[in-house]
């Protein structure tokens, strides 16, 4: 009898890992060539089904099947095949060439082979399973090792400690997903006491993302020392990153420069989530547009400016927070983030948001992406009656009659006429004063003509402040719904409700406080350099 060679490859069945028509690789042996030969059997080859249902050894020569694999067996000189079947699945073949005596295989030969196959098949299946598990364990180990490398790279490039900024509370949180993403954040000391703020997210995960994150962080640090403006920093970083960015990868990034003494924040955005500011009047998003880093060279970026007033908080964050899902599949989402940021809170935005995220996702949540939060809270201004900030340019009172907001607007505009304010800023001032006065008349004083609305205009060399007070401070203020134009057009929101939104966008800052029944809203307009900025638009 021809010696049997080892033929231990699992035959392919059409299953999750074997697509229709995909070839299985079965070695065969012949008398001429005792080495196992590879034989591809397509999963849909009728020979597979035939062998699986065969009751014992099969004569290859007498088989009548349209089968490429059968042709290959014949070509290789195989005379007799004993299918190895385990639990109805073909897992291997014993292939025999012609007997050395050239006689046919006898009934005893076939019985012996059948018995051998019956015992070999389960043992072979066990061997195959052990090998598969070993392969899987090795793959898991390799992935874990790669993730550990990615974690090490990433954590090595995150700030080890946060800067101590007088008048500010800085907090940060970074929580990597199991499959480490490419999040990063940074705080960079700049000349003149300025602080660079960065939050970014690299597409992709694992070691490639971590490597790009490390490079981006270094490039941003270097660029921020060479050029002053956030837009220029992103432009330079983009040009430096583009040539070496791996295919299909890019970096979203928010870069801002904070002047801690004044609260002035200049920022530019390379396709990242919009920063969110908690103000007394609700959450405000800081918009600026620009393409992610590393996609195309010679990109330009919008640069915008805002003033973080006393008591206001800035939040920079990555996708991992807003794209988290609860057990029912609902996403945390931007509206929820804005709503949480819009609430007055005694805790920092970071602590509050993480607590809400944990409540939202539940304890069994497997984190889907890195979560990065960076928050800067400006200490609140002590509230004192009769406080002043600069020279009083005007102080007057109006009756709470709808329409009198126009008078407030004209009188404030007249009061600042000597300040040489650029025309666009003056337009914004007029609109903001009009809206704030209308709120005071219609909501604060409920249009009771006998109740006065007080207006005070103060200026110092850097900042113009307009304070508008009503007597509605003893009543709770209804939280304002953020206007959404599409919702209004679809009838889901009322057409009105634009006042606060306009004030937020027309001013550089807004603050409010209550002393007894007196409720005051302070509108802030930055004067220093505003003309240059407006004229460059």
């Amino acid at each position, binding site marked *: 009898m021809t010696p049997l060679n080892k033929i231990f490859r699992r035959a392919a069945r059409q299953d999750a890992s074997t697509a229709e028509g995909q070839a299985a690789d079965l070695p065969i042996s012949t008398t001429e060539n005792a080495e196992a030969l590879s034989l591809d059997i397509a999963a849909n080859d009728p020979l597979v089904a035939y062998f699986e249902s065969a009751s014992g050894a099969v004569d290859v020569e007498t088989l009548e099947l349209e089968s490429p694999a059968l042709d290959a067996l014949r070509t290789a000189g195989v005379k007799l095949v004993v299918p190895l079947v385990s639990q109805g699945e073909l897992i291997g073949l014993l292939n025999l060439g012609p007997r050395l005596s050239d006689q046919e295989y006898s009934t005893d030969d076939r019985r012996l082979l059948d018995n051998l196959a019956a015992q070999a098949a389960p043992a072979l299946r066990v061997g195959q399973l052990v090998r598969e598990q070993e392969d899987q364990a090795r793959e898991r180990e390799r992935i874990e090792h790669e993730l550990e490398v990615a974690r090490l790279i990433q954590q090595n490039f995150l700030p080890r400690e946060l800067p101590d900024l007088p008048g500010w509370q800085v907090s940060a949180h970074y929580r990597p997903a199991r499959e480490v993403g490419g999040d990063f954040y940074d705080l960079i000391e700049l000349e003149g006491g300025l602080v660079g703020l960065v939050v970014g997210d690299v597409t992709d995960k694992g070691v490639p993302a971590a490597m790009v994150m490390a490079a981006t962080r270094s490039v941003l640090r270097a660029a921020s020392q060479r050029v002053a403006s956030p837009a220029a920093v992103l432009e330079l970083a983009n040009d430096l990153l583009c040539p070496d960015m791996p295919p299909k990868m890019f970096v979203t990034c928010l870069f801002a420069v904070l002047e801690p003494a004044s609260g002035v924040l200049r920022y530019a955005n390379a396709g990242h989530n919009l920063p969110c500011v908690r103000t007394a009047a609700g959450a405000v998003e800081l918009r600026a547009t620009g393409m992610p880093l590393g996609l195309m060279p010679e990109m330009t970026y919008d640069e915008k400016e805002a003033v973080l007033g006393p008591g206001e908080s800035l939040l920079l964050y990555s996708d991992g927070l807003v794209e988290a899902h609860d057990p029912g599949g609902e996403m945390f989402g931007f509206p929820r983030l804005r709503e949480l940021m819009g609430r007055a809170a005694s805790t920092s935005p970071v602590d509050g948001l993480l607590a809400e995220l944990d409540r939202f996702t539940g304890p069994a949540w497997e984190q889907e992406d890195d979560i990065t939060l960076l928050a800067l809270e400006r200490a609140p201004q002590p509230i004192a009656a009769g406080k002043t900030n600069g020279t009083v340019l005007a102080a007057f009172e109006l009756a709470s009659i709808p329409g009198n907001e126009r008078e407030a607007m004209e009188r404030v505009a007249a009061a600042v006429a000597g300040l040489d304010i650029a025309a666009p800023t003056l337009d914004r001032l007029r609109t903001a004063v009009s809206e704030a006065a209308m709120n005071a008349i219609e909501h604060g004083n409920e249009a009771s003509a006998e109740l006065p609305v007080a207006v005070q205009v103060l200026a110092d060399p850097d900042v113009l402040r307009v304070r508008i007070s009503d007597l509605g401070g003893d009543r709770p203020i209804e939280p304002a719904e953020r206007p959404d134009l599409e919702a209004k057009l679809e009838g889901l929101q009322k057409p*009105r409700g634009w006042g606060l*939104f306009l004030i937020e966008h027309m001013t550089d800052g807004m603050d409010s406080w209550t002393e007894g029944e007196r409720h005051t809203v302070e509108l802030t307009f930055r004067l220093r350099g505003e003309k240059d900025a407006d004229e460059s638009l």
Partner: protein
Amino acid sequence: MQTSRFEARVQLGHEAAVVELEGDIDGSAEAALEAAYAEAASHEARVVRLDFSDVAYINSTGIALLVGLLAQGRRDRVELEAEGLSDHYREIFEITRIADFVRIIPDGNAS
């Protein structure tokens, strides 16, 4: 007390009905604005162009009126255009996203 004054006149053209707005667009403009739109729409104009050249002041209530007009235009399948906007109100149209739904005609391009 300030009193506001607002008028809206409809001029029917070949391509669009032009609504010439004059005065302040605030709460007191509601009736005149809606009447002007209704008149323009009654002539089956597919495009209604709002001419803001003589508008000096729009407040948040005026923005709400324009949003209402925009919603009505959507229902009537009437396209709204705006011309003669100052830079300031163009900025407000952009931040409120009204500019995403109203075609703003640059100065000098009005026909």
